């Protein structure tokens, strides 16, 4: 079998990112195809990587300097699963792009697009703390630029959301760097595995301070409660494909970075987990109850996405294998179903010209295919049987049952949050199918290039609901990897 070095998943996109502008001078339409080719390469590479990493973690040493002296890429089942998720969501979004990005400079859009993918891939694969910071910066700067790309009707909102996001984002990345500085001071190393082995003997005070700083720093990308002020505006103002990328790529990579730092570096420190649990529950309820009040379709989805991130935080902070598998399942399901929902919502808004939920009356008759796809996504997020969300919620609740009385309370809270979710999603679905449209005319369905990614995502949502075993094959080793910690995984490598 062909082995593709994981570093090429960064190297090739960067190379193409540098190449695209000069090719675009002579051949104007090239950026789209070059970007597509790059994403395809990453998709193939990450698939091969996942297959390889199921046997043994793939470790790639950069520059030939053995860790902890050099930078190292560590692709366990978890990291490569996320890399695959990132590249496949990027690929599907690539299909979805064309009509939505006409207004601006397309060459620059495609450059930013693949660099965003490269940044997110780097975030999930790197095994070095400072390198994680650099990739976080690439990802966030690319997302700032993509967010401000919006032109036309949403432009005012988008630029405003961008400046808001930038200020909060830069503040938190400064905190992240302070955390890294403190950890470096305490241990003298930046390699994650090395840190994991040195932290138990390091100054406790310093480590706790660093942990607080790092959680603040990464919490923003992960939409954690007090730091998620940017989210709704950003999702609403961004062009539709960019919202998809935010929901399924940027936030997931940020979330993964957060839990990885907490789990692997701090060896699942109990204090850290309790803090995360409280913030997770807060995030869950604030997100879901705000979603209930929204009249704007994309804003509602954005708040729902915050709520789901809260659910993930809760699941991970339960810290047992069942809950972790459930959390990972929910993460996959959320990336896929929310991507689908944002795409379908984008098609609705593109056809209707408004984001108002009340305009969706009778869409089931006017755009049947898109409506059906939207409904599938909504059912999955709600957690109805036969959809991915159902399995994830069941597994998370089973996991919380293992955590004693405290877990019981968590299970009840999760269920009540799901109830809120049920209400606001059913309201939209009801409007789409049951209400009579004010205007009976059929709207043009999205072209096939846009329909294709939605259909693929919907198929995956079904597959996750009826054949979860296939996914568990990857997720169980991934959860074990998290629980064992990185230190034992690559030993003294």
């Amino acid at each position, binding site marked *: 079998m062909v082995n593709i070095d994981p*570093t090429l998943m960064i190297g090739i996109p960067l*190379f193409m990112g540098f190449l695209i502008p000069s090719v675009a*001078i002579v051949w104007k339409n090239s950026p789209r195809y070059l970007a597509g080719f790059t994403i395809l390469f990453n998709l193939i590479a990450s698939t091969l990587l996942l297959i390889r990493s199921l046997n043994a973690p793939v470790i790639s040493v950069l520059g*030939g300097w053995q860790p902890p*002296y050099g930078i190292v890429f560590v692709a366990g089942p978890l990291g490569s699963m996320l890399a695959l998720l990132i590249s496949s969501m990027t690929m599907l979004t690539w299909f979805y792009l064309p009509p939505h990005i006409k207004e601006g*400079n397309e060459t*620059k859009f495609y450059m*930013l697009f693949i660099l965003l993918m490269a*940044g997110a891939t780097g975030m999930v694969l790197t095994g070095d703390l400072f390198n994680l910071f650099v990739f976080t910066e690439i990802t966030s700067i690319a997302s700032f630029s993509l967010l401000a790309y919006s032109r036309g009707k949403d432009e005012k909102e988008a630029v405003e959301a961008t400046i808001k996001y930038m200020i909060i984002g830069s503040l938190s990345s400064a905190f992240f760097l302070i955390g890294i500085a403190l950890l470096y001071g305490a241990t003298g190393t930046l390699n994650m595995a090395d840190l994991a082995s040195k932290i138990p003997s390091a100054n406790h005070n310093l480590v706790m301070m660093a942990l607080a700083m790092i959680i603040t720093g990464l919490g923003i990308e992960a939409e954690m409660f007090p730091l998620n002020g940017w989210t709704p505006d950003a999702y609403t103002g961004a062009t539709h494909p960019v919202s998809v990328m935010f929901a399924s790529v940027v936030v997931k990579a940020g979330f993964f970075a957060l839990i990885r730092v907490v789990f692997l570096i701090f060896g699942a420190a109990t204090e850290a987990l309790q803090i995360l649990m409280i913030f997770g529950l807060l995030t869950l309820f604030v997100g879901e109850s705000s979603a209930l009040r929204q009249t704007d379709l994309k804003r509602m989805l954005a708040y729902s996405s915050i709520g789901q991130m809260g659910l993930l935080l809760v699941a991970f902070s339960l810290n047992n294998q069942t809950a972790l598998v459930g959390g990972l399942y929910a993460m996959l399901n959320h990336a896929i179903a929310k991507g689908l929902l944002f795409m379908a919502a984008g098609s609705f808004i593109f056809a209707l010209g408004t984001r108002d939920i009340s305009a969706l009356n009778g869409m089931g008759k006017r755009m049947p295919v898109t409506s059906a796809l939207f409904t599938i996504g909504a059912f999955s997020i709600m957690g109805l049987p036969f959809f991915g969300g159902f399995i994830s919620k069941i597994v998370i609740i089973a996991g919380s049952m293992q955590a004693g009385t405290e877990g019981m309370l968590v299970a009840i809270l999760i269920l009540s949050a799901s109830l809120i979710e049920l209400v606001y999603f059913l309201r939209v679905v009801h409007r789409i199918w049951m209400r009579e449209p004010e205007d009976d005319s059929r709207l043009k369905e999205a072209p096939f290039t846009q329909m294709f990614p939605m259909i693929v995502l919907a198929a995956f949502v079904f597959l996750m609901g009826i054949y979860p075993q296939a996914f568990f094959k990857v997720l169980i080793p991934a959860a074990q990897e998290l629980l064992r910690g990185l230190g034992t995984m690559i030993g003294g490598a």
Partner: protein
Amino acid sequence: MIKKSIALILIAILFVAIFFTLANDLPFGDNRTTTGVSDKYIYHGVNDTGASNLVTAIVVNYRGFDTLGEVTVLFVAATGVGAVLYNMGRPAGKKRKKTEASLIVRTGSRILFPMMLLFGAYIFVHGHLTPGGGFQGGAVIATAFLFKYVSDTRYHIDHNKFTATESVVGMTFALVGIMGLLLTGYFLFNFLPNGSPGELLSAGIIPIIYVAIGIKVGAELTGILDNMMEVEQ
């Protein structure tokens, strides 16, 4: 007012927390390198990489991948500035401002411009020997172009040429990395001989990378400045 006082209290707490954590747990001036990874860089850096400047050795060789990422950050930002300010430029041929610069500035710029470019190039070529490197040299080059903009109200860079230059040097960096992977199995591996430390042509791939970074950073910073200056008021 309440919001303001809460914020002030929070900031005061943060200040105290950062300061006392540092002062108590990480005493200033203590030697902590012996417990960590820096020992290797300090004692073996020159032999390993051939660069006398250890900071350069780390930036370009040991942690070269960070630097590739850093170049990408700047590249993304430059692209982002271009995308954000797209279509906000002034019409071609229109002057940036009404008053021309004085004769002294214009003549001075004509003399100083090449010298500044040369100085920037000197800084990044000698990155492995003396303080300075690609980023500092690139910034000096960008300053030279800024000077040109100040002195001549009609001057503007040729975007196509700059884009092409940027592409070529950026790809050089990425290619050096990929070549390392192909030749030895390690991305960004130093596949050239180290030479004798202290000489200009030594330190393996470091000079190549620093020249590429210098030109790229110069071109990108100039591009950012140009994009921002061309915005119509």
